[in-house]
């Protein structure tokens, strides 16, 4: 049997040592009624060569976006991952280790996560970042719950322009817990209005709001007025939670500088493969004053008995293994290795490379949008500022267009309707059906974009 080094002979000796005649004797405590009296019907027993052939067969029957000219985004992006990232992640000392509860033999993970936390704080312009959450959607939801704990209020206002899957996650948790969610959709220009006469301001006036939740860029690619939302929220005694794209923060103004109280997001752009949507990680950052309300693990710097600098999991009394039902969250396992990968990614691109990469994505997205508008097949429903992703209305059948382009080797963006229910976005249903989201990463070339525009025009 693979991975069981004990031999048959040794097994017999071990059985004798524990006073058993047969393996079955070890399971005497299990009542006969619940003993499985047959073999498990699970196919297997493949040797490594057969297994590789089988897995490769499954993999090969997919047509990965990574092998196409892809303009798909909506939460998962086809960025270049520097070679060094996976080489570090493949080090068994990192990937085969458990949670660093024994700091004396976990300094590698601990220091790497401390550095990761520092980088997330730097990107978001916040004081504290935790060691990661499951993904952007759950980080967003945990932020809403944290705001509720901080303010002792139960109602949150969520922008309808937040990714529908984040909305769904928030609603699932809210349904089961104590949060009440009110949505405010886009009023004009594909963003939430932050004027004194807008929907956000009027809902806030009803009082007792724990947090305003939005993301910028939003699901349409548009940049929200974060500073304006922060002012409105703070006036009402609510916190502002902002979902952000960490890669874009290389050049985009950080939410921390715009008044956000909690900044969260999907970390996938920082060195995680798309991998059908997971695993990547969620990042979570906030202000110092709220550190004791943070969900999840935190790594801190301290010293050992010899006075050497050392790192350790800290402020653990917030967590489930100590505070149990009063914990700030039930999260235990997080996405540490992906967070470590993000730290390596940020080192690899560096301060300049991060800015250049973000600038390249944004510049190319603006180029593609112009080319697509020139084809005459697309229409821009609004003119709000955007970064590396934008939505255009197509003048024909979106599904047919995508299929036709797929045959030509292009993944033609993501139909907005595929991102989830659009009820809260505030966008007219008929318009929403025609909208396609296009994301452009630094990997796309002018040649590819020109070819794409040309092919779409010819349909």
């Amino acid at each position, binding site marked *: 049997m693979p991975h069981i080094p004990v031999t048959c002979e040794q097994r017999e000796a071990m059985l004798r040592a524990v006073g058993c005649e047969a393996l079955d004797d070890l399971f005497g405590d299990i009542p006969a009624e*619940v003993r499985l009296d047959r073999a498990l019907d699970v196919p297997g*027993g493949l040797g490594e060569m057969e297994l590789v052939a089988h897995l490769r067969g499954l993999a090969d029957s*997919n047509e990965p976006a990574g092998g196409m000219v892809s303009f798909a985004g909506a939460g998962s992006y086809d960025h270049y991952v520097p070679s060094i990232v996976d080489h570090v992640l493949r080090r068994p000392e990192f990937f085969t280790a*458990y949670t660093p509860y024994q700091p004396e033999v976990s300094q590698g993970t601990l220091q790497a996560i401390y550095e990761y936390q520092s980088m997330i704080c730097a990107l978001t312009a916040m004081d504290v970042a935790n060691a990661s959450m499951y993904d952007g959607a759950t980080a967003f939801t945990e932020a809403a719950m944290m705001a509720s704990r901080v303010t002792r209020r139960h109602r949150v206002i969520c922008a309808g322009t937040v990714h529908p899957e984040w909305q769904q996650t928030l609603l699932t948790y809210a349904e089961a817990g104590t949060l009440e969610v009110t949505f405010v959709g886009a009023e004009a220009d594909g963003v939430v209005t932050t004027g004194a006469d807008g929907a956000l301001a009027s809902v806030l006036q009803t009082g007792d709001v724990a947090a305003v939740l939005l993301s910028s860029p939003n699901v349409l690619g548009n940049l929200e007025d974060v500073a304006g939302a922060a002012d409105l929220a703070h006036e009402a005694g609510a916190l502002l939670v902002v979902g952000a794209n960490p890669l874009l923060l290389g050049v985009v103004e950080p939410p921390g500088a715009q008044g956000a109280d909690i900044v969260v997001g999907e970390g996938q752009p920082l060195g995680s493969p798309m991998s059908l949507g997971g695993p990547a990680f969620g990042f979570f950052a906030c202000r110092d004053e709220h550190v004791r309300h943070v969900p999840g693990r935190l790594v*801190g710097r301290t010293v050992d008995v010899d006075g050497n600098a050392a790192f350790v999991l800290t402020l653990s009394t917030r967590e489930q293994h100590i505070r149990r039902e009063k914990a700030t969250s039930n999260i235990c396992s997080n996405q540490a290795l992906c967070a470590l990968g993000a730290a390596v990614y940020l080192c690899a691109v560096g301060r300049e490379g991060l800015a250049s990469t973000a600038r390249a994505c944004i510049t190319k997205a603006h180029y593609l949008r112009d080319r697509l508008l020139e084809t005459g097949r697309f229409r821009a429903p609004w003119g709000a500022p955007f970064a590396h992703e934008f939505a255009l209305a197509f003048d024909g059948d979106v599904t047919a267009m995508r299929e036709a382009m797929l045959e030509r080797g292009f993944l033609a963006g993501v139909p907005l309707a595929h991102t989830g229910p659009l009820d809260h976005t505030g966008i007219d249903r008929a318009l929403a059906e025609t909208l396609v989201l296009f994301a452009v990463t630094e990997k796309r*070339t002018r040649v590819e974009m020109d070819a794409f525009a040309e092919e779409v025009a010819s349909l």
Partner: protein
Amino acid sequence: MTERLAHTPATAPARGPRRLIFETGAAESRCVMPPELDVPAIDLDVALGGAVRTEPPVVPHVTEVEIARHYAHLASMNFGVDSGSYPLGSCTMKYNPRVNEDAARLEGFAGLHPYQPAATVQGALELMVGLAEALAEVSGLPGVTLQPAAGAHGELTALMCFRACHVDQGDARARVVIPDSAHGTNPATVAMCGYEVTTVPSDERGGVDLEVLRSVLDTDVAALMLTNPNTLGLFDENILEITRLAHEVGAFAYCDGANLNAIMGISRPGDMGFDAFHTNLHKTFSTPHGGGGPGAGPVCVTERLSPYLPGPVPVRAVDGSFEFAWPERSIGRVRSFYGNFGILVRAYAYVRALGGEGLREVSEQAVLSANYLKERLRQAYDLPYDRTCMHEFVLSGSRQKREHGVRSLDIAKRLLDHGFHPPTVYFPLIVDEALMIEPTETESLEELDRFADAMLAIAEEAATDPDLVKSAPYTTPVRRLDEAGAARNPDLRYRREE
């Protein structure tokens, strides 16, 4: 001179800390830069409506060799399963097969975008359906969601399904019953799901106290959450009665599957009367722990609860192709997309390598190895529940504390000098000075004996030279930490010297 036991492998860990990556490199250092722009430059300030960053974020600027050296140094200060025995109770630190790592990185998996048309991800869907079918068979519960990212996430998902089902029946309930030996995630999950916790004590044999259970169960109880085998490493002999009692008052029975490694192919949660069950793929199904994650916590449920599972779920269509579908009464999503797919690939590879027969052998060996270690250590340490154990067992260091002032934490730290990762200590909470040991099936007899020898040697050291144990470890990259200082004055990020 204090005796410092030799765990000094050929590649000795770098002693002492490494400076932060922020303090490495120089402003002109570059590693991987994107190509020159091949489209006309634009005015970012205009494009972004003025939302432009004025100060660049303080991320490092280093060259690749500096990155490689930095992380090589950090790695050398870490202990993983490849470094040696890792008998961390309740965590199932088994070997992580390398072929699984390769599989998850195949471009045909890693390169998939979550919103690709289903027709272009048939192999991925087939894999997910195959894994779900295997988990359904192992658990005896037919409905499966692969979406939860971790065990605690799975617990929450299941409780949400219970709540939705009760609410559908106009039967909303307020409490969840948990034994005192439960993992902390259980009560934390209950609170997140808006329920109150009722704790039931364990009886003298380490199982659920039936009498107390009967007294707390009523029609206000939504669920009973149980780990079976439990955190003492014991299979609850009354399991059928326990789940029957829960059902009698209309409550659901939930099985925390952290300890599935003991019973694969031997006993199934569904057959024990559980309505829902989560399994940690990063425990039982050999996917790596990654220094804390990512894992995956799929949930298996009865047919009655299947309509409530989070969507979308991968299914086999009538024509034999695969697609995503939404369960009829779904609670919604519990995260983005479909789950930690890359982890699912690894677990699937493990299942296909072992098959039903192999999975049973895993459990048999895991249980035998635990009992073997227990036998070797029973004289030197207290054994509060002296029964045949499952895949793990709990010793108590109370004798060492009483007689020599040596605590279980000291024993754990001293094990580091002997070259082993310590067991879980101080859990479960109901055992004084608990030492929870789970060897897993992937340790050889030689390693099991070396671990037992080390534990016996430490028991001896505790008696003859307690101070030696109390000040351990000596050979690790850093020694005991000032954890109180870390908590009193939190330093949670690098601050550039002004």
